[in-house]
């Protein structure tokens, strides 16, 4: 009991210290390196909160995609001198915000059943055994549908920043890699394992922690590694097949939702068909999320197709 509390307290202290370090670090590179560590520690924190689904999402994004995105950004952006200075007024204001939130936590920490009973009651009709997946794809499917569209919109925003002559070019730089050397070999070794883990995570999401977002992020990360290792080449952004892949998941989701209209309401699944529909959405959404997230990390087109 004491050891368990000590672990939580030490982990939280570490998380907060690393965050402070990331904000206070003298140089940009140090701030980014600490931020990567921060994401990793948060994933462990989510496990301690009994939210393994969230831990999987945070781990895949924090350990996989954020590192590549932010280290690339830190290299491309000039590191202008920005010495840490202590500003008293903002410090006091932020302290007040933290104290207010802390007081709210203290006053709210009385046992509350929340929405657990409601979810448990309807879980059998949702088509899946993992309550988080049931909420994501059935009870609050609206949120997830709109979110999957938001990802594509963000990608369109990134692509729109390309200069005119590269409007439909290829994202990312041409990778210089020594063939059959260490990185190249690693890039050929990892994708099969990554594909297996990705499929496992989306498949197990039906009744245990996992699902489309976590699996999509894993696949995106593995694809990016293959690109960086010179094993795969990102497609030009105008290639129709890839554009179709980007919207496949949201489109299937929307069609499933419209199909629900026949049964009464948009986005409602009949219990008998729910499992099939949710799995169809999950697998196509995984593909779309993987392609979208990887393209987001690669950024706008940088070279001709």
């Amino acid at each position, binding site marked *: 009991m004491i*050891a*368990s509390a*000590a*672990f939580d307290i*030490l*982990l939280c202290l*570490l998380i907060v*210290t690393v965050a402070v*370090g990331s904000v206070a*670090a003298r140089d940009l*590179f*140090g701030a980014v*390196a*600490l931020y*990567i*560590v921060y994401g*990793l*520690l948060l*994933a*462990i924190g989510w*496990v*301690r909160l009994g939210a*393994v*689904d969230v*831990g*999987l999402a945070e*781990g*895949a994004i924090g*350990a996989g*995609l954020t*590192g*590549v995105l932010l*280290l*690339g950004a*830190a*290299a*491309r952006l000039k590191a202008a001198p920005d010495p840490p200075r202590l500003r008293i007024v903002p410090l006091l204001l932020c302290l007040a915000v933290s104290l207010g939130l802390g007081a709210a936590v203290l006053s709210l920490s009385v046992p509350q059943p929340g929405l657990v009973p409601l979810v448990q009651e309807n879980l059998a009709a949702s088509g899946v055994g993992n309550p988080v997946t049931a909420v994501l794809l059935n009870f609050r499917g609206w949120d997830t549908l709109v979110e999957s569209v938001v990802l594509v919109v963000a990608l369109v925003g990134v692509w729109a920043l390309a200069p005119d002559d590269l409007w439909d070019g290829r994202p*990312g730089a041409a*990778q*210089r*890699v*020594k*063939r059959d050397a260490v*990185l190249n070999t690693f890039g050929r070794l*990892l994708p099969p394992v*990554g594909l297996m*883990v990705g499929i*496992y*995570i989306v498949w*197990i999401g039906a009744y*245990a*922690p*996992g699902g489309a977002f*976590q699996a999509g992020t*894993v696949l995106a*990360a*593995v694809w*990016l*590694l293959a690109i*960086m290792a010179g094993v795969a080449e990102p497609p030009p952004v105008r290639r129709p097949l890839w554009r179709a892949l980007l919207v496949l998941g949201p489109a299937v989701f929307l069609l499933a939702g419209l199909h629900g209209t026949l049964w009464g309401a948009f986005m409602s699944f009949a219990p008998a068909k729910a499992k099939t529909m949710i799995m169809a959405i999950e697998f196509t959404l995984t593909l779309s999320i993987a392609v979208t997230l990887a393209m987001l990390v690669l950024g706008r087109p940088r070279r001709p197709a």
Partner: protein
Amino acid sequence: MTDLLYVAALVILANVAVSAWRVLHGPARADRIMGAQLIGTSGVALLVLLYLIHGSSGVLDLALLLALLAAFAAVGYVKSRSADGAGDPEVAGGEDP
């Protein structure tokens, strides 16, 4: 048994804290990425211990995921060292083989 596992987890957490100090202070950039890599390995070990404590197989899946992605930050780092983000320390002078 559980208490011993927690003690082991605390030892690894202390390791993480020490490595985080290296990430903050460097001195070389490679040191900082190494520190992040060490924290990744420690994180996997922590999750294996937490799997034994909680007994939920999802925790082990997270360990598997972190192990799969363990090299990402470091590969992203060596790539970001060149101006165009495409370099590789294995290619001498940056020319194509």
